């Protein structure tokens, strides 16, 4: 257990200071308008070009969504809950409806569960593709920026056929889902996932086997298994450190118990491992989508659920693209919740940012930092 890093003054823009031993360090402010940090700031202290101290400074895109939820009824909250991470909208929505259904005691029909799972897995692919495109452009690989963003259209277009909207679906409602499968959806889904798997092989050839990437990612930003558990990481960050933890297997919900898929883990815990976990998950999601359109049972898609939230407490959680997303919900008998605590995967993974950056060179910062898949908007909520 190393000593905790000393606090960095948050007002610092750029300054030098001399320690007692005579070594000079430079404090840099990366963000909040920096293309390499997103809507947040990383205050980085460097000795030469070795990072000796990092302080994440989030909160620039805080919207007070927990308070907004308290002021709206449970249906009106759905579009708001999707907003923190619109590229992963249905997974966040799923956590919300799960916690509501737990309080209400409503059981969702099996076809509704399958449709929820279908959209969740499509969303997981879309979110990982978005992550991958930003990862590519962080490392100066413009082709890897264009290709995943283009291939996202495969699934955006598919989701549009299913839900009627391209990104913010508001598709999952308490009691089930809003629409049934359109005709011809199954064939189209199989065709597109098979084509997408071919594309993933091309991604491997152009990026993941490319020495320009591997030499920058292997052995960089190592997060050991013990450290990842200690920091409370989740999602691909945790699995990239060799921990086999996935809510879809550990606490199966929706249609996951009936589906056959693997949880991908990599033992090394470096940036390359975390990147490969994302790639493996996209392959598994393609398999899941094909299984769903094959096995989907017939029947109703939605059961009638009241718009009232009875008195009670519930904790609903799902495995979103960036890790575990959960709602702690307290109902008091009205149509609005008394309190809704909303925690997302990025928020849990924020603790890993200093851990992966310390001791690395400043030039390795984009590789190590973005491999965590930290989405500032989702973390700030």
């Amino acid at each position, binding site marked *: 257990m190393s000593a905790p890093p000393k606090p960095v003054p948050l007002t610092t823009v750029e300054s030098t200071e001399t320690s007692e031993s005579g070594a000079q360090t430079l404090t840099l402010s990366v963000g909040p308008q920096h293309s390499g940090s997103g809507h947040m700031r990383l205050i980085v202290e460097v000795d030469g070009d070795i990072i000796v101290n990092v302080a994440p400074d989030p909160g620039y895109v805080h919207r007070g969504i927990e308070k907004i939820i308290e002021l709206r009824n449970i249906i009106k909250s759905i579009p708001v809950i999707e907003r923190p991470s619109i590229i992963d909208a249905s997974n966040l929505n799923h956590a919300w409806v799960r916690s509501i259904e737990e309080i209400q005691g409503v059981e969702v029909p099996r076809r509704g569960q399958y449709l929820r799972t279908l959209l969740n897995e499509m969303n997981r692919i879309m979110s990982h593709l978005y992550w991958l495109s930003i990862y590519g452009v962080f490392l100066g690989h413009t082709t890897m920026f264009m290709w995943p963003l*283009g291939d996202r259209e495969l699934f955006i277009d598919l989701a*549009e*056929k299913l839900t*009627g909207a391209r990104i*913010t679906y*508001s598709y999952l409602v308490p009691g089930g889902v809003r*629409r049934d499968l359109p005709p011809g959806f199954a064939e189209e889904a199989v065709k*597109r996932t098979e*084509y997408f798997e071919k594309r993933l092989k091309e991604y491997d*050839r152009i990026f993941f086997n490319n020495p320009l990437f591997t030499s920058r990612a292997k052995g960089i930003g190592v997060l050991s298994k013990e450290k990842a558990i200690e920091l409370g990481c989740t999602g691909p960050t945790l699995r990239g450190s060799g921990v086999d933890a996935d809510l879809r297997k550990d606490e199966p919900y929706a249609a996951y118990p009936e589906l056959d898929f693997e949880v991908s883990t990599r033992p090394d815990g470096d940036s390359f491992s975390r990147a490969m976990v994302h790639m493996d998950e996209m392959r598994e999601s393609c398999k899941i989508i094909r299984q769903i359109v094959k096995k989907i049972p017939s029947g109703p898609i939605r059961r009638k659920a009241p718009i009232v939230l009875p008195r009670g407490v519930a904790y609903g959680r799902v495995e979103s693209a960036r890790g575990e997303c959960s709602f702690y919900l307290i109902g008091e008998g009205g149509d609005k919740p008394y309190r809704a605590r909303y925690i997302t995967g990025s928020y849990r993974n924020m603790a890993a940012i200093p851990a992966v950056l310390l001791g690395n060179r400043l030039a390795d910062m984009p590789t190590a930092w973005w491999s965590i898949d930290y989405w500032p908007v989702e973390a700030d909520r």
Partner: protein
Amino acid sequence: MAPIIGKAKAAVDISIAYLTGIRHLFHRPYTLRFPQQRYAVEKGYRGRHLLHLDRCTGCGICAWICPEKCITIVPRGQRWYPQYFYGRCCFCHFCTDYCPEFALEETVEYDIAEYTRDRLVWSPERLSKPPVKKDDKYVFSVDTIGGASQVPQKEE
């Protein structure tokens, strides 16, 4: 010996990466030249609303369920109808789902941007007109040889 093998493997991997990229120089583009080339959305797309004036009773459930408070109920003679402010609308279409009289409907009209804020307020009369047919013909298509691209829709 090992460094030489490593360098040779790196050279091969980089060449493969370049060849993979070069192959795609001849791929059809994913993008469209909007608005000359327009994307055709399917029926069921959640575009702007269509209001059936004869069915609407002016009950106001649409305004109650609207998460963005973009619907106002306005009087027209003896009756009341919803009026939409599309500057706020998030196109969740909960109003369409919750309408007990099926007076609201989704349309495929998705480009409703305007130059002024006033024009974004859609009166019941304007909402009741069906969307103007535009030359939407491009669809997203995947075929195993040519890959994924936007292609003109087949004539039926």
